[in-house]
C-alpha cells in the first residue's frame, strides 16, 4: 500500500472550509525513585538492563506491588486538573505481544481510571480556552527497542531488534482530553499551549522532570476535520510520540492541511496512527491497523483494588501548589516585566531559577539579566538546560550582590560566573583565586590615574581645556592598566578631579 501523492491545502484555506476537532493523550513518566511495581531504580540513561528484576522482566512467579508514591502523585495530578477521584478502582491487564513488554501484557487501567472528568484552562492569544479532561490513569512504561539493520534505523526494514528493559515498569500517567472543538484556526496553538501548561503543572507538582527531549513527557495528537457548519466529526488520525512543544503545534497544523487536501480532492481519511518527522514537519502513515485492536482487558488479579481514603484525598487537595498560570501572573507583576520577557523566561525554563535567585536576595532585574543573558548563552553553548548548569540561584544572587556593592563590575562578574561554572568554587572563592576584585583602594586607584595622566599628557591637556569627552580615553587607560578591575565611574571622577574640571 503506497500513499497516493498528497496535496496539502494551505492552512488559511483549510480553516475557511473545515473545523478541526482535537484530542490529546499525554504520557508523563513519574519521577519516583523506584518503578511502579518493583523496587528497581528509574535513573535515566543507565547502561542497558542494569535496572531490572524478575518483576519488570515478567519472569514467572514474580508479583507486582504498587508504589504508594506513584498512586499519590497520580491523585495529585488529577486534583490539579480539577478531576473527580475514584472511590474505588482497579488495575487492568492490557494484553498484547510486543518485545518491549516482556510480560506480554501491560498493567494499565481500563474502565476505572483513578481520576476522571476534569479541566484545565490555557491561554492563547489572550483568549482563555478550557480543555476538558476525560481521564487520568496510571500504567507502566515499556522497554526501549533499538532496530538494527535496514537503512533508517526504523522498525520497517530492520533485520532484528534489541531491547533494554530499564524503562519497563517506570510509572507512567496518561492524561486524556475530551474532544477539543471550536478552536478553529487557533487549534495548533491550543494544542501546544495545553501541553506547555501540563508541563508547567507537572513541574509545579514536582511529580516529574517533564523532559520532553528525554521522553518523560510525550504526546499523541488526534486530529479530525468536519466541514464548517457540519455536526458530524470526520475520521481522525493519531500522530504518535511528539516530543517537543513545537512538534505538537506543527503536527496539528500539518494534519489539518493534509486532511483538508484529501477531503477537498474527494478522498477519505484513513483511521491510522501517523509518525511526525521533525526535519520536514510532515507526518507519514504508521502501522495500518488491519484489524481492530483486541487487548482483552481484564482486572489485574495480582493487584488488589485502590480505594483512596477521602480524608487523604482532601489533604492532598489542600496541599496543592499555586496553579502555574496564577503563579506566572503573580511573578510577572512582582518583577514588573513585560508579557514578552515573561514568555521568553518561560520558554527558557528560567522562571523557577529567577524566582529562586530573587528569593536569595537579588533584585529581579539583575536575576533575570544574568539567567537570560550570560548563563543562557553558556547553557546554549554546552547544549544544556539552564537548570543543569553547575551554578545555584544562591550563587547567582551572590554575584548580583558583589556587583551591587561595587566589588565587581559586569565584566568581572562574567568571569566569576565562568569560574563557578568551571568548578572553581563559590563566587567568593573565584574572586579570591582569580584576583578579580575591583581596585577599590582609593590610594591605589589614584596612583594608577596619575600614571595614566602622565603617560597621556596630550589627551590630559585636551581635557583640561574643557574637552571632557576626551576623558574616555583616560578611563580606558585606567581599565587597561587594572585589567578591567577598576570601577570605571569612580576612575572617571578621579580623572576629572585631578585635571580640575567638573563632569
Amino acid at each position, binding site marked *: 500500500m503506497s500513499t497516493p501523492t498528497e496535496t496539502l491545502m494551505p492552512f488559511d484555506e483549510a480553516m475557511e472550509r473545515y473545523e478541526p476537532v482535537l484530542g490529546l493523550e499525554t504520557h508523563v513518566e513519574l519521577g519516583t525513585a523506584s518503578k511502579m511495581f518493583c523496587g528497581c531504580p528509574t535513573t535515566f540513561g543507565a547502561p542497558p538492563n542494569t535496572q531490572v528484576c524478575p518483576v519488570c522482566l515478567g519472569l514467572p512467579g514474580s508479583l507486582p506491588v*504498587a508504589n504508594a508514591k506513584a498512586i499519590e502523585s497520580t491523585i495529585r495530578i488529577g486534583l490539579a486538573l480539577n478531576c473527580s477521584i475514584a472511590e474505588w478502582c482497579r488495575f487492568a491487564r492490557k494484553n498484547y505481544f510486543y*518485545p518491549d513488554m516482556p510480560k506480554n501484557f501491560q498493567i494499565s487501567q481500563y474502565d476505572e481510571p483513578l481520576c476522571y472528568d476534569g479541566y484545565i484552562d490555557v491561554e492563547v492569544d489572550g483568549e482563555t480556552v478550557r480543555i476538558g479532561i476525560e481521564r487520568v490513569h496510571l500504567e507502566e512504561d515499556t522497554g526501549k527497542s533499538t532496530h538494527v539493520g535496514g537503512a533508517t534505523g526504523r522498525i520497517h526494514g530492520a533485520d532484528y531488534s*534489541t531491547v533494554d528493559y530499564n524503562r519497563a515498569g517506570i510509572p507512567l500517567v496518561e492524561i486524556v482530553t475530551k474532544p477539543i472543538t471550536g478552536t478553529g484556526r487557533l487549534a495548533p496553538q491550543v494544542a501546544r499551549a495545553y501541553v506547555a501548561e501540563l508541563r508547567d503543572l507537572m513541574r509545579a507538582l514536582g511529580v516529574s522532570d517533564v523532559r520532553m527531549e528525554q521522553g518523560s513527557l510525550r504526546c499523541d495528537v488526534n486530529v479530525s476535520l468536519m466541514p464548517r457548519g457540519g455536526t458530524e466529526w470526520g475520521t481522525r488520525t493519531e500522530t504518535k510520540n511528539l516530543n517537543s512543544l513545537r512538534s505538537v503545534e506543527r503536527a496539528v497544523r500539518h494534519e489539518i492541511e493534509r486532511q483538508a487536501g484529501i477531503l477537498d480532492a474527494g478522498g477519505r481519511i484513513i483511521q491510522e496512527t501517523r509518525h511526525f518527522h521533525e526535519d520536514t514537519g510532515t507526518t507519514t502513515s504508521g502501522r495500518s491497523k488491519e484489524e481492530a485492536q*483486541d487487548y482483552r482487558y481484564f482486572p489485574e488479579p495480582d493487584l488488589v483494588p485502590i480505594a*483512596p*481514603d477521602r480524608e487523604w484525598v482532601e489533604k492532598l487537595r489542600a496541599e496543592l501548589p499555586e496553579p502555574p498560570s496564577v503563579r506566572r501572573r503573580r511573578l510577572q507583576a512582582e518583577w514588573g516585566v513585560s508579557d514578552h520577557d515573561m514568555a521568553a523566561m518561560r520558554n527558557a525554563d528560567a522562571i523557577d531559577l529567577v524566582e529562586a535567585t530573587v528569593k536569595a536576595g537579588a533584585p529581579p532585574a539583575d536575576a533575570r539579566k544574568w539567567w537570560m543573558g550570560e548563563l543562557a548563552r553558556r547553557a546554549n553553548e554546552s547544549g544544556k538546560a539552564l537548570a543543569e548548569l553547575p551554578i545555584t540561584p544562591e550563587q547567582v544572587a551572590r554575584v548580583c550582590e558583589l556587583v551591587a556593592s561595587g566589588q565587581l563590575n559586569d565584566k568581572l562578574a562574567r568571569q566569576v560566573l565562568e569560574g563557578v561554572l568551571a568548578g572553581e568554587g563559590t563566587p567568593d572563592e573565584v574572586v579570591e583565586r582569580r584576583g578579580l576584585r575591583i581596585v577599590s583602594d582609593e590610594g591605589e586607584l589614584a596612583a594608577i590615574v596619575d600614571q595614566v595622566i602622565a603617560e597621556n599628557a596630550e589627551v590630559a591637556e585636551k581635557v583640561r581645556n574643557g574637552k571632557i569627552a576626551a576623558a574616555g580615553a583616560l578611563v580606558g587607560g585606567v581599565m587597561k592598566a587594572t585589567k578591567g578591575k577598576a570601577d570605571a565611574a569612580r576612575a572617571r571622577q578621579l580623572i576629572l578631579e585631578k585635571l580640575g574640571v567638573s563632569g
Partner: protein
Amino acid sequence: MSAITRDEVAHLARLSRLALTDEELDHFAGQLDQIIAAVARVAEVATDDIPPSSHALPLTNVFRPDEVRPGLTPQQALDQAPAVEDDRFRVPRILGEEA
C-alpha cells in the same frame, strides 16, 4: 447453543500466537465450551445482592513505599535469553518491510 464458537477460538488462538490445526480447533472449541458451561454455573447462585468480584480477598490499598531495592545484574537478567547483543535482549524482526 454453545458458549464459545469455533471462530472465537480461532481468534483467541491468533491473539495468543498459537498455531492450531483445524482438528485442534474443533477439539478445543468443544472442550472450552464445556469448561465455560461449568464455570457459568456460578451465575446460578449469583443473585442481585451479590456484587461481582475480581479478587478473592476483600483487600484494598496494598502499596509499598517508594524505595529502591537491589535487582538483577545484566548478566543475570540476560542469562536465559535466547539471544543477546550489547547487553540487550536480541529479538527477531518485529515488522516486515513497509508494504
